[in-house]
């Protein structure tokens, strides 16, 4: 018990110190403001409905019928069954219990048994589970129901899933130790699955009325068929234990909940016994995983989100970088390499060929007009979506290189060259993607349109968008980069930099500020566009006036972007990272 109390002490104090640290941090105005905004967001989005009940909700109360609840239980059980099956099929590696590097350093050499470490791990996972339970309860409670039932129900589900994942990983390791390869294990599980599915289908064919087109197209009939299939025959027995896990959460009232609780709790305890009785050597794999995880977290906190997607591979340079020429090109070149395969010329050629070929080749078929209209609209929507999302996804700029600030500041480059070099890659990549989407969209819409403005108008709109987008992208990318340099502590990879209610508030403020600045930046461009359009449209027509008006707007945006790059460069020159993050 002394060991468990020591582990509990570690967990409790880690949690308490983290909270104290965050509270102390609120003395800084930027965290206080972030904390207030974050707290208001959580209150209005989640807690208000908990405090006021469903009367405060904008969402209609969902009171499911008993039949619907049963169907939910069946479908949930099926989802749980599939999820559990996947953990027996896919993973290849040995058991990896997730420990931090500090935990590995302190706990692994300590006189703690393997079972003690498992208990510690289970205790620690409860912190995450309880937090997730709180969030899920807040979300699901917006649709009505008893919050206590929801909370306990979610806890039972998540804890059982967590224990099953752990137990399954132990079992896989035991199989590996006994010489049963992952291929043999998978084959066994898949054969078992095929037999179960075949048996269920055979039973359905024998016992249920045949599926007709009417059943498939009618929601009520389809629901009835699914319910019959899942609540009788082999599927009933197969899904029974999974339904037991879900039953407390789906209980419509306290009495049903109390009836469902013992079985779910029994399954949880059975899983617990299974896990703690396993005697599997996980230490080496866990220590190795802890080191890799620490490296990944460090890289991701520094803005390299690809680090979380796996190992970085060497990438071919997009062009040969000669030692002479404008130095900012070196930054552009390195960021294109960082962006990786996205900028591979071969990929671009393939994309252009496929997109253009589809649009041109198939566009001639009269019966395909509706499809082309649809595809063209989808391409256009993707293009619009890329304007909003692209600058957040493509972070191969100052955001990616914030941890390299010391190095960048040593380089013999004026600030504007650094800013230009850092911004160019995301602007070029984003613009290239958007231009491709515009071309595809314009070609498809031109082929598909019989009514409306016609190909000439589509061409005018497309040309205008092509002219405007590089500068819109530049402005959109300038804003978050300026934010990073103005408030590096908000974006640094330091401890707790990205967590907590205040961090959520900071993100909300950042998004709102970005929208505001972008709206303000659009005003001169909109004025320039309006003046030119007003002057020309009477003489050349409403659509033909669009490209010249777009040129005027693009010039205004270009001037703003140039000014922005100069300011960003000055920001970088003046940046004293040690004053922001403390002396090193």
């Amino acid at each position: 018990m002394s060991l468990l109390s020591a582990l509990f002490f570690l967990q409790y104090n880690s949690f308490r110190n983290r909270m104290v640290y965050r509270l102390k941090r609120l003395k800084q105005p930027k965290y206080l403001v972030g904390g207030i905004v974050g707290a208001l967001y959580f209150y209005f989005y989640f807690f208000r409905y908990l405090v006021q009940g469903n009367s405060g909700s904008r969402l209609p109360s969902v009171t499911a019928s008993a039949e619907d609840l049963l169907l939910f239980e069946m479908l949930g059980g099926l989802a749980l069954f599939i999820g559990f099956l996947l953990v027996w099929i896919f993973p290849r590696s040995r058991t990896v219990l997730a420990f931090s590097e500090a935990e590995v350093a302190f706990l692994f050499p300590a006189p703690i048994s393997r079972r003690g470490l498992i208990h510690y791990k289970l205790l620690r996972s409860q912190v995450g589970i309880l937090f997730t339970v709180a969030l899920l309860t807040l979300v699901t409670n917006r649709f009505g129901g008893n919050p206590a039932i929801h909370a306990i129900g979610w806890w039972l589900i998540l804890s059982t899933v967590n224990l099953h994942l752990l137990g399954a990983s132990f079992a896989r390791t035991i199989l590996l130790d006994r010489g049963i390869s992952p291929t043999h294990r998978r084959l066994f599980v898949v054969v078992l699955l095929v037999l179960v599915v075949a048996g269920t289908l055979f039973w359905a064919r024998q016992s249920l009325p045949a599926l007709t087109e009417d059943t498939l197209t009618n929601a009520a009939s389809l629901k009835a068929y699914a319910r019959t299939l899942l609540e009788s025959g082999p599927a009933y027995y197969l899904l029974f234990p999974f339904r037991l896990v879900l039953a407390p959460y789906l209980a419509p009232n306290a009495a049903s909940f109390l009836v469902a609780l013992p079985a779910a709790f029994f399954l949880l305890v059975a899983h617990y016994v299974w896990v703690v009785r396993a005697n599997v050597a996980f230490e080496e794999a866990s220590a190795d995983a802890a080191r890799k995880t620490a490296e990944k977290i460090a890289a991701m906190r520094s803005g390299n989100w690809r680090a979380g997607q796996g190992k970085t591979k060497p990438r071919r340079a997009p062009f040969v970088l000669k030692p002479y020429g404008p130095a900012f090109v070196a930054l552009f070149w390195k960021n294109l390499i960082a962006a990786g395969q996205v900028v591979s010329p071969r990929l671009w050629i393939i994309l252009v060929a496929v997109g253009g070929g589809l649009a041109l080749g198939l566009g001639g078929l009269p019966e395909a007009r509706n499809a082309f209209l649809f595809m063209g609209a989808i391409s256009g929507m993707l293009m619009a979506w890329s304007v909003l999302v692209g600058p957040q996804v493509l972070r191969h700029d100052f955001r990616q290189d914030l941890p390299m600030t010391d190095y960048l500041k040593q380089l013999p480059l004026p600030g504007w060259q650094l800013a230009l070099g850092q911004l160019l890659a995301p602007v070029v990549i984003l613009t290239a993607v958007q231009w491709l989407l515009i071309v595809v969209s314009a070609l498809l819409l031109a082929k598909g349109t019989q009514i409306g403005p016609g190909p000439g108008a589509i061409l005018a709109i497309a040309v205008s968008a092509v002219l405007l987008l590089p500068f819109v992208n530049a402005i959109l990318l300038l804003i978050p980069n300026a934010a990073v340099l103005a408030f590096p502590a908000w974006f640094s990879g330091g401890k707790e930099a990205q967590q907590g209610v205040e961090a959520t508030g900071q993100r909300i403020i950042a998004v709102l500020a970005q929208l505001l600045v972008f709206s303000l930046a659009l005003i001169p461009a909109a004025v320039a566009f309006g003046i030119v359009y007003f002057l020309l449209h009477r003489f050349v027509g409403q659509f033909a006036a669009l490209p010249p008006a777009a040129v005027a707007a693009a010039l205004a945006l270009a001037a703003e972007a140039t000014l922005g790059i100069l300011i960003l460069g000055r920001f970088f020159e003046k940046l004293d990272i040690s004053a922001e993050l403390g002396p090193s």
Partner: protein
Amino acid sequence: MIEVQGLTKLYGEFVAVQELSFVVEPGEVMGLVGPNGAGKTTTLRCLCGIIPPTRGVVKICGLDLASEAIEAKRELAFLTDEPRLFDYLTVQQHLAFTARVYQVGNYRETAEQLLDELELSDKRDALPGELSRGMKQKLAIACGLLHSPRVLFFDEPLTGLDPIGIRRMKDSILRRARAGAAIIISSHLLHLVEEICSHLLILKNGRKVADGSLEEIKQQFSHQAPDASLEEVFFRATVDETRDS
């Protein structure tokens, strides 16, 4: 070649470096030593333009680091104990990038020599993630030396290097000093400082405790013990003062 006048760096009310003045001539290797928190790294970061000094003037090869920053930075290299590398650029790509930024026209030949010297020739297509800590350090050194800087700042230059690497690093530093480079080395390894430095600057609590040639410093703090080691001198210069105060 390195001239520092009244260098002061404040963080709010905290004084990291106070009124520091010294000169390092071409061919001199100056050891920057002091206890933890003495302000060594802050001084080096100010000297190479990473952080702006609160007050004072820093000149590199006669160029004012504040008003002629670009020209001054072309003449220097700063090699830290924690190598700063781009995790998505290979060894070769790091060198190409550095060559373009510093406009080193004939860099391929120099790069080959550096890769050979630092035993990185067979790692030219490797990413930093595939290199050991020592190799990362060597890559940072290769990038730092590619443009043949006339002023070199080293912050714990031997961290992570193996014995052969340490020997070569020392030789390389001395060779560059003989070729006319002005060098400052910040290190806690007093035997390294004693072996390769011609001059010494001792810092404590951000202030200069002593500055001069090794012999002068030894004389100043040896207290009539002619064979006093640098370690003893260091303790007398830093610990005794605390006792006095």
